[in-house]
């Protein structure tokens, strides 16, 4: 019993120290990041002051355009359109890619048959997929989102296939002996083991997806950040181009900080923190 109580005390002590350190620990990186971004802005505005040009506006000019676009409602509309396309393509790519990846990772025969297909799709240029999608399915929203998803799916498949290969058979055997149902199996055995791979695929996924979404919008949509950038490119308005880009980067940063990281912390709460 003594051993038992000791480990209990240790555990609760660990948790207490974690909580304390996470208070300071959360503030310090945030302050560092803020200082770093301010430094970059300062450098930018110095450089723009030394070489004044319409093609290289200072940060304040970009900020002014940003406010103007926001006030007219254009910024919000186009950001929302792009965000919705990113979200839709992300969901489609993650779901389809995960299912295919897990199937390939657990069925060796299917894997060796479909592997050449996978390599083909991995090496298909994004531009080709987008152009073909628009030609075959018309300039529609579904074609746009589908094209983005197809660009991302092979990456998800490769990552999730690795995850499925790394599944621990002992957990599956335990589940078989105790007769876990298929739903419980997915929820308690499969998903937690695949979570790190899912997180990796989704991290690299969101960044890739939003870049491809811009191309899709540029080629065949009449809304979204990509469409606006194309518009301002034609009238050579660099300040507006930067305003739209930075606004969307800021949104992606917020999603990462407020959605992705807390979710990931929740999913890995059982991992022992490094001392």
């Amino acid at each position, binding site marked *: 019993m003594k051993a038992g109580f000791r480990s209990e005390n240790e555990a609760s002590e660990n948790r207490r120290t974690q909580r304390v350190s996470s208070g300071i620990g959360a503030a310090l990186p945030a302050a560092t990041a803020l200082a770093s971004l301010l430094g970059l802005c300062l450098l930018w505005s110095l450089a723009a002051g030394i070489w004044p040009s319409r093609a290289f506006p200072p940060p304040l000019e970009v900020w002014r355009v940003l406010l103007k676009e926001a006030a007219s409602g254009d910024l919000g509309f186009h950001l929302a359109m792009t965000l919705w396309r990113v979200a839709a393509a992300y969901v489609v790519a993650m779901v389809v890619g995960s299912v295919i990846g897990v199937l390939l990772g657990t069925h060796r025969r299917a894997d060796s048959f479909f592997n050449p297909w996978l390599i083909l799709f991995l090496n298909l240029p994004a531009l080709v997929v987008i152009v073909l999608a628009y030609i075959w399915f018309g300039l529609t929203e579904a074609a746009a989102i589908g094209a983005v998803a197809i660009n991302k799916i092979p990456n998800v498949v490769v990552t999730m296939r690795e995850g499925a290969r790394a599944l621990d058979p*002992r957990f599956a055997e335990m589940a078989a002996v105790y007769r876990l149902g298929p739903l419980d199996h997915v929820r308690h055995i499969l998903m937690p083991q695949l979570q790190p791979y899912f997180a990796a695929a989704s991290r690299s996924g969101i960044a890739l997806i939003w870049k491809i979404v811009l191309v899709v919008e540029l080629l065949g949509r009449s809304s979204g950040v990509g469409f606006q950038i194309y518009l301002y490119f034609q009238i050579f308005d660099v300040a507006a181009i930067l305003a739209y880009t930075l606004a969307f980067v800021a949104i992606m940063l917020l999603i990462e900080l407020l959605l992705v990281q807390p979710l990931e912390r929740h999913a890995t709460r059982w991992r022992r923190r490094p001392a």
Partner: protein
Amino acid sequence: MQPVGVAAPLKVDIAEKTFQSAEGVKIVALRGLSFEVRQGEFACLLGPSGCGKTTTLRILLGLDRQFSGSYQLPEGGSNRIAAVFQEPVLLPWRTVEQNVRLALSPGLRDKELDWLFEILGLSTMRSLYPSELSLGLARRAALARAFATEPAILFLDEPFTSLDERTADRLRRLLMTVWAARPTTALMVTHNLREALLLADRIIVLSPRPAQVLGIYDVALSRHLRDAPALDDLVLDFHRRFPDTM
């Protein structure tokens, strides 16, 4: 496997089990292995390392179906089987209590388990994650999971290996306590003679590979009388009966 009444025992009759090695060589792991475990009894499969004990258990657990022969599991009760593996095999991403309750059938997930956690000394550890437990405590949690299901038969595969002797001994006594509270037909695999003599009603003695039954040793002494000197006597008696083993 035919349902035969409520109190049918475990009957094992494995004709042959072979493994194919990586070079394609056939290795016979089991041949002509047959034995029975009576209802409500704690039996031990005792044999040297590598004789096919774990293979036998994997067949009985339904994890290995590539063999010839048949076996019959006890019917009745919850009609479930439970296993304590060589390693605890707790899900690291679920707490101790969630690990135990996940093994229950969905309708019974909320049933009262305080007595079980209490007996096994896990009451204060129900909300901890397995990484926060010592190996001994993780083993206890694995025992709790097995007993929580109130199985028709309980299989234990060397559940006390890689523990220091004191911890292993405490765990063996704990196992007996919880087993006495809910007597369950049990089959434990071990290569440790003293452990078998301490826990079992009957010991099924196996030969080296391919495993066959050499004989049955009935432990006549009542369990609460099996202290260290009594165990020494039992070991001597066992060696008189089976001079060539262990």
